[in-house]
């Protein structure tokens, strides 16, 4: 039975005086507050914090947690996000005292094991990327992009070149232009061909002595491998530019194809997608980057260096762009990535990608019975279907289908991305799903597209919160918690 109090706010559960002082009276004299703090630092009245008993507090959070849809409770084919199952063993290993209970100010000789692990992770990521050197510092994929673009800017500056443009395809993740802007570049969009690949004629039009970096995602966001990536890289290099590989889709090519081998000069990894880092939740994350030998001197400081059997943090890097993150990044995520890579080994990682691609192709062929997939019959780790015809014929949108899937017990796929496909439904099943799950998902979509459009417009029907009013939520957001019955509308 659903506990309806689960979604009540703590302020709604609050009753005056309902708390248990658990601490004994203080046994040292307490000076008045006015003696301890300046007058302006003392609030005129106490904050209206909720007052609830411990069991109510525990039930509130525990019940809320059961309402979550996660990869541990549901199939989660969120395209572009690689929501594969994270083995619990990596959580346990990352929680070992030697990793979790160390302090960043501890002397290096007392954390040699951890430094050795990080050093080996640098080496493993260099091997997987086919590039020369790695920085584990960035705290997320997007920060990895920014860091690598700052590295590129430092490289061009040292060469005395004034390059102002970053190029990115119209199918790129939104982080690419955002990172370019933050790094001080101007972004120029490169068109895609009708087949969904980089339009090489359009790219060529933008390649000149102002083009610093071409940011490319390969496989791209349509789940297609840029088959001409080597020729593209040659052309970009021919005009003095660099290739940045957005590594968001590395789950498709591990151990099969290395970015450094197909011409990338720099790239980032998303450990939360590829190497079992925690998904979502706002972090903590990690976005290690790998670069060529020419770019390595500019990597952020510090990197883990090895001298014989001793590992240390190398801060003496005169050409470095400097620090991009406090201490040594989010080490806990890096430990999980190390464990994942070591558990699978080279052969296992290749199998990960082979199965991710196989699952995506199987699901593509099942889903094509119900929804068209404009960019072809064959994909890498994900594909993009369209609800364009459903919308034209019966008024059923991609959003309707996504919301209704929740009623069938599936997390929704990504919708309306990439923007070059109308009514896009972007599906990424990942390698960890069984054939039975993939079949059940395809069959659910098959049923949904036959359902009454009115039922779909109001979906989901079985969740604690049903269809929100997206427009009002964006235009008239209620920015503070309000108790039930109080009018929260602030205009």
């Amino acid at each position: 039975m659903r506990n309806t109090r689960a979604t009540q706010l703590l302020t709604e559960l609050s009753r005056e005086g309902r708390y248990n002082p658990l601490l004994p009276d203080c046994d040292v004299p307490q000076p008045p507050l006015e003696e301890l703090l300046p007058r302006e630092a003392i609030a005129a009245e106490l904050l209206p914090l909720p007052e609830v008993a411990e069991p109510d507090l525990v039930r509130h959070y525990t019940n809320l947690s059961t309402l979550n849809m996660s990869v541990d409770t549901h199939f989660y084919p969120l395209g572009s996000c690689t929501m594969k199952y994270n083995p619990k063993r990596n959580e346990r290993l990352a929680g070992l005292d030697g990793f979790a209970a160390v302090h960043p100010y501890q002397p290096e000789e007392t954390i040699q094991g951890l430094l050795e692990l990080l050093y080996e992770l640098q080496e493993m990521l260099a091997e997987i990327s086919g590039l020369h050197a790695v920085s584990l510092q960035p705290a997320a994929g997007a920060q990895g992009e920014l860091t690598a673009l700052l590295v590129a800017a430092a490289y061009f500056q040292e060469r005395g070149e004034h390059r102002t443009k970053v190029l990115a395809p119209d199918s790129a993740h939104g982080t690419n232009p955002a990172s370019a802007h933050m790094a001080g570049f101007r972004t120029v969009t490169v068109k895609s061909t009708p087949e969904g690949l980089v339009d090489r004629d359009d790219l060529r039009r933008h390649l000149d002595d102002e083009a610093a970096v071409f940011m490319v995602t390969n496989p791209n966001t349509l789940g297609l491998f840029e088959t001409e990536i080597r020729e593209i890289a040659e052309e970009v290099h021919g005009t003095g530019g660099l290739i940045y590989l957005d590594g968001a889709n590395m789950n498709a090519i591990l151990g099969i194809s290395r970015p450094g081998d197909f011409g990338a000069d720099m790239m980032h990894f998303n450990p939360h997608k590829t190497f079992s880092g925690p998904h979502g939740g706002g972090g903590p994350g990690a976005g290690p980057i790998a670069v060529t030998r020419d770019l390595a001197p500019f990597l952020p400081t510090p990197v883990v260096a090895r001298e014989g059997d001793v590992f240390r943090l190398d801060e003496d890097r005169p050409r470095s762009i400097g620090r991009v993150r406090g201490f040594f990044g989010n080490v806990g995520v890096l430990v999980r990535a190390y464990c994942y890579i070591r558990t699978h080994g080279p052969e296992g990682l290749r199998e990960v990608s082979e199965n991710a691609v196989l699952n995506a192709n199987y699901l593509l062929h099942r889903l094509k019975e119900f929804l068209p997939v404009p960019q072809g019959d064959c994909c890498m780790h994900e594909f993009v279907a369209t609800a364009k015809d459903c919308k034209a014929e019966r008024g059923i949108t991609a959003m309707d289908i996504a919301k209704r899937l929740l009623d069938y017990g599936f997390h929704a796929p990504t919708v309306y991305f990439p923007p070059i496909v109308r009514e896009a439904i972007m599906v990424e099943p990942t390698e960890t799903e069984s054939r039975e799950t993939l079949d059940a998902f395809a069959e659910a979509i098959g049923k949904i597209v036959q359902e009454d459009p009115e039922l779909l417009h109001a979906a989901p029907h079985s969740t604690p919160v049903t269809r929100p009013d997206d427009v009002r939520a964006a235009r008239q957001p209620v920015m503070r918690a309000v108790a039930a019955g109080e009018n929260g509308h602030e205009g």
Partner: protein
Amino acid sequence: MSPEELRYAKTHEWIGVKTDAQGNKVGTVGISAFAVESLTDLVFIELPKAGARVQAGESFGEVESVKAVSDLYSPVNGEIVEVNSELSENLEWLSEDCYGKGWLIKVRLDDEKPLGDLLDFAAYKQQCAEEQA
């Protein structure tokens, strides 16, 4: 303005050009009904201030829907002389009357050359039909 008399950019902006009292060519710029419908429910629009410069093919603002944020591209070169400043509070004007009350900016044209790259109504309608397909 009547949509048949306007010229259109491939990126779905329209422009209608008139000559003002001083003899300057001034273009009123907006987005087409096709664009408004494709964007779905709009939640936010960011427009520049009067006096800003625009370049043909370059972004001069952005419009956000529940689906995505999209750039607005200028069809011409020139200086912005007027901005529809009430639009951001009345986004429904775009769905009700995108060729009238829902105009975005007025631009004093530097030159008429970029107008030659624009589509007339029939050619634009053709492009929309192809995109729809």
